[in-house]
């Protein structure tokens, strides 16, 4: 299991996990509203913020979207 180290890696992993490219908009919008992180427009200070990465991963987990395994 690879540990996500950067927000960019998280975004790539999420894209790979979702069934369709169009799903990314919906999930990303939910993440922005819940965490303040836009995975399409990652701020420099967010890129390697481990606490923020964990917050986004936790939000995805609550949605049942596990980056390291499973499916939405």
């Amino acid at each position, binding site marked *: 299991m690879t540990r996500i180290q950067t927000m960019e890696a998280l975004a790539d992993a999420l894209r790979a996990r*979702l*069934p369709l490219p*169009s*799903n990314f*908009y*919906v*999930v990303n*919008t*939910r993440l*922005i*509203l*819940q*965490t*303040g992180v*836009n995975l*399409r*427009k990652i701020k420099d200070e967010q890129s390697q913020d481990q606490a923020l990465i964990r917050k986004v991963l936790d939000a995805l987990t*609550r*949605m*049942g*979207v596990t980056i390291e395994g499973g499916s*939405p």
Partner: protein
Amino acid sequence: MIKNLAPRSAYTAQTDSALAAAELIAGLGEATPKLVVFFATVEQDGTLIGNALRIRFPEAHVAGCSSNGEFSEQGHGTGGAVALALGSDVIEQVASTLAILDDGVPVGIETAAAVLSAQLGQSIRDLDPEHWVGLGFLEGASGREEKINEALGNIAPLLPFVGGSAGDRIRFERTWVYASGELRHNACALLVLRPARPFAILKTCHFVATPAEVTVTKADPDKRLIHELDGRPAIERYAELVGVSVAELGFPHFLANPLGLMIDGEPWLRSLVRAQGSSLFFACSVLEGMTLNLMQAQDIVENAATAFSKATAPLGVPPRAAILFNCAYRMIEVQIKGIDDAYHNALSSVVHAGLHSNGESYLGHINQTLTGIVFS
């Protein structure tokens, strides 16, 4: 024989609920709809109206909620009711239920989602968002819309729910929703629809972002409070942005100058309600670290006039019917300007029913926006 039904709306100004129900039923005419939605001013007896519609249209799902005012292409006002009937030429499949929030938002939404899934014979989590859409009439008086939208997203992250918060003449005291033959106050009415033809989610506002940006540096999202903007007392920084003194700042400034969270170039409006000490109380939660733009108003009637065509342009087919959720702030603006007839005329190219809501929803909670589902 089951007849198909062209979309049909009805409006009544009757404040007596029995008379209002009778006028709605007469207005909807001879029909066999699959779905009937209704919106009625909060003092109306929603149980009476909902049950009357269920008796008249026994094969339809009937759902509704209280409003700050209601409108259709047949008329608009506050105190009465509107209804929209959609037949099998518009709606192929429907599920509906109440999400009762007495044991908390997550439990209420999870329980309701299980009911919706059982009605459809498949999990709502697995529904294809190209063909399905969620519709929510949210409890609108207690500031839980963010949690409700989050709970819906946790259950079905790929399925968009669009809707709005039930109204109560903008008192934020008690709203009601109706579904499955029951009226509840502490609840949401949730529906999942499979339209028969292409459909579009409508989310539009008449504000554009100015270059003026602020960063939220201290906030209490659960209380929808912003304490600091750019490291300064929120009220001072906001007054500076708007160009008035703190002493001059009042509701007209709040109404005309919302802040916007810009996502991929689209504004997600956060409307100010009042000052609270040196903090600002919003109608929507904002997180620390978020950058917000000061927004500038455009022509609200023009915004309404182009709403349907813009929403359905990607479909390549004209809009035929819509269920609409119009922010009470938009209602106030057109009333103050004396352009409410022009505003509603601009929406009237399409058969519709809508309410002036206590907030709007699409993936999350938003303000000062017109949301809805547009059917082709």
